């Protein structure tokens, strides 16, 4: 059943460091062991780390680009129209001094300036926002990594390209960027099911609530994994109960888990009971939400 499944599952959390990478990589590993056709997309484009846990063979890599205007000083009449049309303050103009400049870091590549220039003074060039790379891990599994360039205004375009590269076949795990801002939304919007990772602490609860509110407005189905169970307090459990949110799994806090993880070792390799739990959780999700069309 799980072998023929087609589903996108996003692994997300309101803030970083709750164990999103730990869970994404272990889920992926468990699927890999079962010979299931699976792809892990590392959408945490600011700091992609998933690949560190596997040995992959690079198969494909491409740059994700956006257009940025190039202004020809000889044709420009300094009419200022492009400056008016730019909604991101990316054009600097000083007509008396005949100075016009594009501030590339602020440009979103919307094309408005090119559209409005009546003097044909604007052409466009491509600039890189980051790369998407596909690594083959085993015969049936691969990791696609989205990697943003430092200082780029948003990782969203690189993330979108990486998810697109994953296609629609098999089980696709999306390791989402942390938070609930734009990059998170653009990742989970493509998912059939969202697994939220949290810690049983006041910080964890506050971040979880914000994620849940956001997913509610997006009409997504979701469940929660509590990581580092045993540390902290009961308020997260109370909240889940009260809101009727399924608790999918608990991963106990254990210094040895943390220390294995720090070495880049996969938990499910030496903790068979966790592996069994991952598999049954998967079966449950696929049974209920699989084979949809996102």
């Amino acid at each position, binding site marked *: 059943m799980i072998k023929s499944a087609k589903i996108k599952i996003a692994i997300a959390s309101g*803030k*970083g460091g709750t164990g999103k990478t730990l869970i994404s990589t272990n889920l992926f590993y468990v699927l890999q062991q079962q010979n299931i056709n699976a792809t892990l997309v590392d959408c945490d484009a600011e700091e992609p780390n998933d690949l*560190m846990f596997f040995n992959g063979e690079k198969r494909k890599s491409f740059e994700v680009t956006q257009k940025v205007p190039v202004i020809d000083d000889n044709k420009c009449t300094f009419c200022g129209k492009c400056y008016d049309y730019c909604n991101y303050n990316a054009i600097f103009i000083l007509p008396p001094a005949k100075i016009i400049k594009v501030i590339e870091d602020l440009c979103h590549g*919307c094309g408005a300036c090119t559209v409005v220039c009546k003097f044909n003074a604007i052409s466009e060039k491509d600039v890189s926002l980051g790369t998407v790379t596909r690594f083959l891990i085993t015969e049936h599994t691969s990791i696609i990594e989205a990697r*943003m360039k430092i200082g780029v*205004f*948003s990782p969203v375009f690189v993330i979108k390209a990486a998810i697109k590269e994953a296609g629609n076949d098999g089980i696709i795990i999306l390791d989402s960027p942390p938070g609930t801002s734009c990059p998170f939304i653009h990742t989970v919007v493509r998912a059939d099911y969202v697994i939220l990772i949290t810690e049983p602490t*006041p910080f964890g609860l506050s971040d979880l609530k914000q994620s849940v509110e*956001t997913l509610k407005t997006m009409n997504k189905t979701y469940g929660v994994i509590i990581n580092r169970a045993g540390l902290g307090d009961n308020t997260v459990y109370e909240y889940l109960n009260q809101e009727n949110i399924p608790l999918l799994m608990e991963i106990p806090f254990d210094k040895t888990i943390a220390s294995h993880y720090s070495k*880049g070792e996969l938990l499910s390799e030496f903790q068979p009971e966790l592996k069994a739990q991952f598999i049954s959780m998967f079966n449950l999700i696929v049974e209920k939400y699989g084979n949809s069309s996102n």
Partner: protein
Amino acid sequence: MEIAVISGKGGTGKSSISAAFATLSEKVVLADCDVDAANMYILFNPTHEEEQVYIGSQKAVIYYSLCTNCGLCVDYCRFNAISFINNKVEISEISCDGCKLCSRICPTKAITMVDSDKSRMYSGTFRNGKMVYGRLAPGEENSGKLVNIIRDKAKKVSKENNLNTIIIDGPPGIGCPVISTITGVNHVVIITEPTISGLHDLKRTIEITSKFNLKTWVIINKYDLNVEKAYQIEKYCSSINIKVAAKIPFDAKVVEAMVHCKSIIELNPSSEISHLIKNAYTLITNG
């Protein structure tokens, strides 16, 4: 003096250390610039003295009574936000980047831009001084603009109240909000963990701080989870002349402090961790 606490990746204990710095003794201004996951207010429960609406972006909205369904906007939008759905043009709120081009070119002026006005900046008082923090509404682009507004406000509050030290709890990552957080501060403290990705994340973060020529310090948190990796981090730091201000062991007390809505300094001032953090702070502020 502005001290920014940042980390390449979330979950390194950045917030706990910022909170400890903010409660060491002298009164401070605490600026929570981790606007996507603002947490400091949970620990410190500040009073709300001021609230300011932050307009992060705009979204395009179609007035169908004016729309002739000509499809021009669909062709012009570079963000693929407009498409025909059931023979009617529709704008996806998620994909719209707010560039306004569609609204400008629509022949019938059927598209208007609406402000996204759900994000907020707050300022108030907490038990060890003043606090400024922001909350980004879900789905907003975390562009660093809100971070700039918080920092400006924090500076103003620090002048008005004669509080010389501003502690900034920064966002994780290497994007635009991080750059806004650290530009022009006196000290950057990077919190790192000895994990498989720790050193790599740290290097990427140092790449940014060195671009801006900032006085940078490193704190290795939970160093005893992997002593070997911690040593590699130390070696790397000394090779590029960056001081490790502290090596802090793992202690469940830090989480316990959080559960009690306290910093570790407040919960357990005489613990080893509290001492290490105090020493680090003295080193940084005198350095």
